């Protein structure tokens, strides 16, 4: 009985397929990377099924590739002959715990869907990705993502209290307080000695398949308010963002860039100065006013207040702003982190210059390399560089990849911190010496047969 049949006997015929035209659809993510075609795609509906699949794969040493929504922009693609575990059907919300402000959910649910459910009971999650439309909770956490809400709530990793993970050998690992047999509830992450939750945060499917996530939730804010500012220099813009963070104004979103993400795009490339920042703040209805006053007070020292409209729209469309760039053509994006402070401004200017140089350099291939800054994340910025190209032209596609690599290396040298690794940064990861060794050791421990997403993180 071959692997496909065995798996079929686990999940049932409709939930597994190895038809070439089906698996083809699972060979890519949203990045510029050409993925290999997996051998089969399986869509388990229960944890038990996942366990059985993993065990089987482990025994037969078949590579496994857990997949959320396949929208990664950093080359999270399966290897030849891998089993893709599509978590689409693991999309149920297990429980919304209004007492401890926790929502326990399966990984396959998209942020959008979850948002709809939470809203009904008057709650919300803290951090949502730029592409919350189709991005899944599992995928975002596994790549310790950031997004709207990060300005105060930090990384998705900060918003997770516990996990259930199926390990390659089929065992179900629970992390956090839910370990206690007598009170198996997720309400504390640092409950049982070492915090293993974090180990899976950012593991990008190299250690196991996440089957349950406990997310922090909060009550819906009574009020939200907005403010847009205009700055003449990166210095003032970066400084302003930092100061707002320092004053700990509850700033849900802090988007700084060449253009408010909803402004008209010049199809030839992003228009340049002035730099704008959109602030979105939350608070109780009778208090938010004071926050806004304070906010304006602070930021006006650096830039000009342009009212709230742009920021309001950008907040309303927060989960679709990426579309403004997608409309330009297929976009490859390289995200990275830059700390608050003087350095950030210098970085922006440098990388902006480089982007233009590259656009020049690849003129004949009609590439468009540009930098639109990004948003505040806890103690730093999440910036991204975009390469816009036409995938139907294979040469352009090739060149785009080269350009991407160049801008990436440049950013790295300028001090940008890689933050979603996939296969993009895999090489750079290996420079990290002892750190990488420890990663490898981990991999050894949890996945001795190296079946989990081989290649990703360069493991």
């Amino acid at each position, binding site marked *: 009985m071959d692997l496909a049949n065995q798996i079929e006997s686990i999940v049932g015929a409709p939930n597994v397929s190895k038809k070439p035209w089906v698996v083809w659809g699972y060979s890519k993510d949203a990045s510029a990377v050409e993925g290999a075609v997996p051998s089969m795609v399986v869509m388990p509906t229960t944890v038990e099924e996942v366990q059985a699949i993993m065990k089987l794969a482990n025994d037969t040493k078949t590579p496994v590739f857990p997949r959320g929504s396949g929208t990664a922009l950093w080359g999270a693609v399966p290897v030849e002959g891998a089993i893709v575990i599509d978590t689409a059907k693991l999309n149920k919300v297990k429980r919304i715990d209004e*007492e*401890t*402000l926790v929502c326990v959910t399966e990984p396959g649910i998209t942020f959008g869907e979850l948002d709809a459910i939470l809203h009904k009971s008057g709650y919300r999650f803290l951090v949502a990705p730029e592409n919350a439309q189709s991005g899944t909770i599992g995928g975002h956490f596994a790549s310790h993502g950031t997004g709207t809400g990060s300005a105060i709530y930090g*990384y*998705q990793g*900060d918003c997770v209290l516990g996990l259930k993970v199926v*390990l390659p050998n089929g*065992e179900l*690992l629970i*992390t956090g*307080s839910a370990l*206690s047999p*007598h*009170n198996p*509830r997720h309400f*504390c992450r*640092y*409950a*049982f*000695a*070492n*915090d*293993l*939750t*974090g*180990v*899976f*945060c*950012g593991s*990008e499917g190299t250690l196991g398949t996440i089957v349950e996530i406990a997310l922090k939730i909060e009550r819906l804010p009574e009020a939200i308010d907005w403010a847009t500012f205009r700055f003449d220099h990166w210095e003032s813009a970066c400084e302003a963002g*930092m100061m707002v963070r*320092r*004053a*700990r*104004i509850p700033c849900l979103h802090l988007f700084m860039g060449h253009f408010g993400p909803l402004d008209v795009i010049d199809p030839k490339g992003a228009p340049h100065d002035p730099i704008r920042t959109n602030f979105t703040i939350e608070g*109780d209805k*009778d*208090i938010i006013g*004071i926050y806004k006053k304070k906010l304006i007070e602070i930021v006006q020292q650096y830039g000009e207040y342009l009212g709230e409209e742009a920021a309001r729209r950008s907040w309303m469309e927060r989960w679709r702003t990426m579309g403004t760039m997608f409309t330009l053509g297929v976009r490859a994006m390289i995200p990275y*982190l830059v*700390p608050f402070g003087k350095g950030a401004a210098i970085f922006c200017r440098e990388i902006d210059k480089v982007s233009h140089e590259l656009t020049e350099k690849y003129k004949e291939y009609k590439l468009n390399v540009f930098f639109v800054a990004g948003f505040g*994340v806890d*103690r*730093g910025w999440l910036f991204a560089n975009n390469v816009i190209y036409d995938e139907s032209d294979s040469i352009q596609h090739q060149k785009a990849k080269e350009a991407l690599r160049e801008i990436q290396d440049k950013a790295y040298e300028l001090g*940008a*911190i*890689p*933050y979603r*690794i996939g296969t993009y940064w895999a090489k750079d*990861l290996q420079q*990290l010496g*002892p*750190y990488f*060794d*420890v*990663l490898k*050791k*981990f991999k*050894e*421990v949890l996945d001795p047969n190296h079946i989990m997403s081989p290649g990703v993180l360069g493991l």
Partner: protein
Amino acid sequence: MGKNNKMVKVNKEKKIIEELKEIVGPKNASNEPWVLYIYSKDSSIHEGQIPGFVVRPGNVKELQEIVRLANRTKTPVFPRGSGNALWAAIPPKGSIVIDTARMNRLLKVNKDTLNCIVEPGIMWAELEGLLHKEGYKYLVSPGNYIGASVGGHIASHGVGPSSSIAGNQGDCVIGLKVVLADGTLLTTGSAAHPYHPEHFARYTVPYDLTGLFVGSEGTLGILVEICLKIEKLEKAVRFAIYAFKTYEDGCQAALEFRETQFRLVRLMIDQFIPGRRARYSPEAEKVVATTYPITTIVGFEVCHESLADPQLKVLQEITARNGGVDLSTLDPMVPKNAEGMWRETGIGHCLRFQYGVRTLLPMIIPFGMEAKFFFEKGIEITKEVQKKFPQFVYSDAGNAFSVDRHYLSGFMTWYDESDPENWADAKEAMHMFQERGWKNGWTPYRWGTEWNSYLKTIHPYYDILKKLKKTLDPNNIMSPGILGLGGKGGR
């Protein structure tokens, strides 16, 4: 064991102490029995164990040398902060105790990225002093923040009275430098970056290894550098005491306080026991003693004075909604400013120590209304134990402070260590607490060796810990016994 091996053993020890003295200088290493005795015990109820050596490295290099030596000679090492753990963090027999007291510098304060980088040996209170001078503060410090070292608290993912919004110490760490069993120096978080080794983000390079060492209690590596989140020091604070009729009301109110997402730096809930606390003024005490036995102590800070009173108003509304009363007005002892708050819950919190030597079994319970059942159950358990051991003074388990999405509560007994029988009983009592608490869903939260037998029952979690331990520390030299990892060790 034969005379011969004894000789071998003695020689080995001689060699080790010599090497240690070479590494750190004769003044900073010792195997004098009386020195070892001092370092043999923590603040917990358990007897100490005599280590083999005490050594006090002054910098990372020395520490690495020591660990390499230990790894070579397969001698266990036991990193020690301030030695006042309450959960049996006790050095294994013959181990090298690495006292971090000399590694106590504040290396850097990054105002831009709001963090500070410290060595593990620095006391929380010392650090607080230094940060205040700069106009900043750290987020969470332990109850005994005067006695405790930073390293120790991080390594045991501690919490403190200011945890309500800031959460667990684990949430306040951005990155670490750790010396692994083979002596290599591991950097976690964004500082691992070769071109730009700066701590400012924890979740950058994949796998959040930081978390792995937070709470490892010295079993995987020795922290030598810690990057802590800091925030601007706020002058504008408010502090209030609200009293409620029942736990229902109290817990509900606490939940709503928490939901406001104000920057609560204190949120404690607490049942009034006559003659237990000096927290109330007589007037206030009257109210509490008669109709409103459940009190919540709330303190918060704001970025702007103009925000303080509106926020306070919100809290008062919540209190009123839940049928509570505001004691703050009644009670002249309620702090009026940052200093007051600091005294009240900084030093004030530590004063539980005053009762004399005691066991503390810190445990966590969920936030919200459910906590009520735990409190009541806790009091029940306490009564039960009290019936068996009437000679002790007990803290009711009905008080706690809020930490992110849970409460930290626990069981306490005051006993007399000078009387062996009394001491033995106290241990018995504590085991009862452990067993009852565990069965009733209280979650232990600091481990040492105290919970080994329990931890071992959790699969596959525990197996994975063991595996990790084995790969990172093949010779099992890092605090063997702690967390039930590698050998008996511990008590």
